[in-house]
């Protein structure tokens, strides 16, 4: 399947040349990934360091690891040495889970219906409806946050889980509508036609064709929107406070004017990233479609 440029260097490229080329490519790829993965490795290392090792100048590469940062961050255990932030990471984690799951549940329900309508049913101004959804993807978050801030203060939705779940729809619905639309469009129209001719009503059609056929796509899209909601930072930053603080936001609270608690911040960062990496690996095969809102299919 892959059309490699190397394939066509043909008879002109001698065996030795091929070997050199292959070696160069391996070096390049290893080089890239050393740089790309290094920050993760460094932060994992830092999360296992004691306060003295964290601020050591020059930095220490080999050190006696400690679980202190994780104990302090996850269990709220007081650090023996050094300071401790008053950030409640377990609560932030719960907030993230609740807000992301609820947001995606709502968005999957309504977004899939919309995607199906846009993909398979005749509709006036269909393309404008599609652009309406996409326009949210392009808008700066602050353009929605500032007026919403005023509205939420009036309605009492400021610093509530519900308020953030509503805002997350701005992220999840466009993603789901556009990505799922491309999956629904991939189902042959004849399948629907024949179901309708057989007298199936719309719910039967959805249940028997529209849901089962792209079900891996549905799962992948749900996971990708979960990651997108989890990653969001601006909504909880500006429309919430301590009670609704998410884990993504909590990571940054270890940096204050007085001090930076590097070790605990590193531990919090690891706790934030790990669930996402697990989810990310699960949906690797579907990532292209999700990232481009269905514009490019894998």
């Amino acid at each position, binding site marked *: *399947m*892959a*059309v490699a*440029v*190397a394939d*066509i*260097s043909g008879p002109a490229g001698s065996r030795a040349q091929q070997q050199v080329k292959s070696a160069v*490519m391996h070096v*390049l*790829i290893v080089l*890239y990934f050393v*740089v*790309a*993965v290094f*920050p*993760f490795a*460094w932060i994992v290392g830092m999360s296992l360091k004691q306060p003295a090792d964290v*601020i050591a*100048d020059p*930095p220490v590469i080999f050190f006696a690891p400690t679980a202190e940062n994780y104990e302090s961050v996850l269990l709220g255990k007081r650090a023996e040495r050094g300071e401790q932030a008053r950030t409640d990471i377990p609560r932030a984690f719960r907030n993230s889970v609740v807000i992301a799951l609820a947001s995606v549940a709502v968005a999957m*329900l*309504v977004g899939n*219906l919309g995607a199906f309508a846009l993909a398979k049913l*005749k509709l006036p101004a269909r*393309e404008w409806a599609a*652009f*309406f*959804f996409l326009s*949210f*993807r*392009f*808008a*700066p*978050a602050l*353009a*929605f946050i*500032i007026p*919403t801030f*005023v509205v939420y203060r009036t309605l009492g939705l400021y610093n509530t889980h519900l308020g953030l779940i509503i805002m997350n*729809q*701005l992220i999840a619905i466009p993603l789901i509508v556009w990505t799922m639309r491309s999956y629904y469009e991939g189902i042959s129209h004849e399948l629907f036609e024949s179901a309708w001719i057989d007298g199936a009503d719309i719910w039967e059609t959805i249940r028997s064709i529209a849901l089962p056929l792209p079900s891996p796509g549905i799962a992948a899209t749900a996971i990708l929107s979960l*990651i997108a909601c989890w990653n969001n*930072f601006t909504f909880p*930053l*500006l429309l919430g406070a301590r009670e609704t603080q998410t884990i*993504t936001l909590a*990571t*940054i609270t270890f940096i204050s004017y007085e001090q930076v608690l*590097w070790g605990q*911040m590193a531990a919090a960062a690891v706790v934030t*990233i790990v669930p*996402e990496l697990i989810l*990310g690996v699960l949906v*690797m095969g579907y*990532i*292209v479609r999700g*990232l*481009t809102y269905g514009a*490019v*299919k894998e």
Partner: protein
Amino acid sequence: MQAELAVHERAKSAALPVARSAREAREKRLALALLVPSVLIPMLLMLTFLFGIGMTFTQWRLTTGFVRFNGLDNYLDLLTRRDFWHAFAMTLKFSLIDVPVELALGLGLALLLNEKLKGLRLWRTLLILPLMTPPVVGSLLWKVIMRPTGAGILNHMLISMGLPMQGFLGDPGQALPSLVAIDVWLYTPFVATILLAGLQSLPREPYEAALVDGASAWQAFRHITLPLMVPYFIIVGFFRAIDSLNVFDTIYGTTSGGPGDASRVLNMMALEEGFLWYNLSIGITVTVFLWAVCMVVGYMLFRHVQRERRGGLA
């Protein structure tokens, strides 16, 4: 018997168009019914945004709750403010460096990952690491690495190579390039992933023909691969252009627009005006301006995607 059959046939053929048009009408009603819930929530939020546009014609102080209609004053005020033009220039500068670097690096990476290399599965898995990381957390990782003292690992490497220590994010001249570097680290995998999908969907025939004609690898790349990849470049390019114009998380997590105003992009200016100086109406005016810029770029992307959808991309 025969007559009966003929009648039956006639009834069937007469019934079909009726059934079809009735079904189409039903289908249209149904489509609207299905679309309404998914439109409803974004519509409410869109109303909020329209309210925000309304706010740009007012003086809206958060602290005093003072609200006064003041026409186009906010817009005129911004047009004469040097810090607004500075923020706009910073935003464009960030985007104009960021996007080409990511496209070039992403293409290189995609070409490599399209080869038969050892450990390909591992590489492709590692590729998505930064993609799954929240941008603000990703920027924190780099803030740690780029610490402007000897305790920073990057500076430690420079020193051990006999090079002078750098300020990176803390240096006015280096803040923006450092932020670009972080953004490149975060989003080159995005570009590479999509370009790789493009490379893998390319037809084989042109390459076989080129091989017969004795074309070199470079010629094949230049005259077959690049032209065929244009639609993919346009899609990733637009996505990255919009997102880099909207850059916020990485800057908030590292420099907060500083030092001074060295990395103060439009979003940072809007945040400061709105939530630091409690001048909501100026803040929203800045973001409405940015919104308009992003919509123009976004509409171009939309048109491109529409064309490709009809032509059938991948």
